[in-house]
């Protein structure tokens, strides 16, 4: 509260200056034409609500004239205000013309200007009161040594028995070397091998032997049999192409029979 004077020292300085002294105040000491007008108005030492706008306009125009004489650089808005005030002054002096299509009367314009000056003055007083009020850490103080909230982390673990067992099994198996993947190689009877074998049998193949009977005995079980059957069939087809054997199948998926065309005994029998 006590600080109002200090903060608003600048306001006071301009306000108390007498009009003639003000001629020596640079225009840029004012916050625009409205500020200048308000300062002049306050020097009339009457309630701004009752201020004489005519007198105020005269003072303003006089000020601008003096500033011009002193070759002071005037901002455009000061000159705009001067022109407007000169116009208002002429309208206030001259007899009221009949109200022209809704244009405000000179009195209305004067009232409006008065109101704007009052409002600016009111806002300045409000600002002074606000700034002079109890300010935190200037006039009133919060706790100087606050006690901060202690955040305690309650740590829990998501790890489950599943994670534990997975980690264990994976780790152990890996360590024992069992983890490397080795594809199981299925036994394969190479086609070349089957063909060589069949060629050795040529002339000794019984008439229309079933394909099954042509595969080697040691290849007759499990996955070995499948490979042997396939290789032997392909070998037979190659020999058939060479005209060394004949192949016959009565219907799809029926048994396949092979006959030797080399053996003289077979020819005699046909």
């Amino acid at each position, binding site marked *: 509260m006590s600080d109002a004077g200090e903060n608003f020292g600048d306001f006071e300085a301009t306000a108390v200056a007498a009009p003639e002294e003000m001629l020596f105040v640079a225009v840029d000491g004012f916050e625009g034409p409205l500020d200048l007008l308000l300062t002049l108005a306050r020097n009339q030492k009457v309630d701004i609500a009752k201020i004489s706008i005519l007198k105020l306009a005269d003072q303003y125009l006089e000020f601008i004239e003096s500033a011009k004489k002193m070759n002071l650089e005037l901002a455009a*808005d000061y000159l705009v205000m001067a022109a407007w005030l000169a116009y208002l002054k002429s309208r206030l002096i001259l007899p009221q013309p009949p109200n022209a299509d809704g244009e405000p009367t000179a009195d209305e314009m004067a009232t409006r200007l008065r109101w704007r000056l009052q409002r600016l003055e009111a806002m*300045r007083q409000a600002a002074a009161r606000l700034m002079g009020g109890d300010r*935190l850490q200037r*006039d009133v103080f919060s706790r100087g040594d*606050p006690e901060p909230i202690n955040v305690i982390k309650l740590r829990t673990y998501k790890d489950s028995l599943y994670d534990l067992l997975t980690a264990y099994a994976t780790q152990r198996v890996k360590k024992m070397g069992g983890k490397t993947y080795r594809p199981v190689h299925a036994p394969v009877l190479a086609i070349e091998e089957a063909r060589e074998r069949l060629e050795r049998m040529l002339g000794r193949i019984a008439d229309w032997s079933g394909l099954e009977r042509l595969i080697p005995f040691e290849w007759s079980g499990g996955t070995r049999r499948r490979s042997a059957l396939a290789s032997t069939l392909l070998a037979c087809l190659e020999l058939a192409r060479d005209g060394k054997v004949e192949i016959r199948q009565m219907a799809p998926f029926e048994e396949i029979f092979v006959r030797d065309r080399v053996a003289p005994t077979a020819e005699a029998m046909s």
Partner: protein
Amino acid sequence: MSGVARLVAKIETEMGVEVENGDTVEGVNPEHLRMTEALLFAASEPLDLKALATSLPEGADVAGLLSELQQIYEARGVNLVCVAGKWQFRTASDLAFLLRKEQPEQRRLSRAAIETLAIIAYHQPVTRAEIEDIRGVMLSKGTLDVLMEVGWVKIRGRKRTPGRPVTFGTSDAFLIQFGLESVNHLPGVDELKAAGFLEAIPPSGFDVPNPTDELGPDEDPFIEGEDELDLATGGPDLS
């Protein structure tokens, strides 16, 4: 132990007993009162009802506790005050003389900044053009920047008028700094309103803006990221 202290302690531990004048003490829970006191004392920032309620036992009458505490501390060297709708212990303002010394000089705002701050506080939501109309002068680029930087002024929204100018208002930090419960508690706000100085421009008798945190009827909320800085320091509202 002096008689007063002893008596105070005795009464405070016997909350709820019949007192000489026949009144029955209203039932604020004395333990809850101690807790509220401790929470507010410990905090470095003002606490709102919600923050207190989450720290206090369930079902605690937070509002009742606060008003009780406020009264207990009313005449003390430390008071419980409501700022920006939150509660904080602060030293009594009449003791400012005792504490003011040795405080680092606060950043001094320019006269233009102080005036602009006041206009924003009392007229919010207010556009840059309206501030300029009241002051009768263009706002220099830095003035709003300074106020936004200090954190007392924020962009609130946009006015639903041509150009959709941004509107300015004050922040919670402003209320906390100036010890105000809300913008309705600004000093002299009622008188200014009664005198018509807070009315929109021109004074036409209708459309009286209350300084309010709520969005105005012709105000849209401000969307973060809408090239904020640019608008704050000279946007389309200049037209």
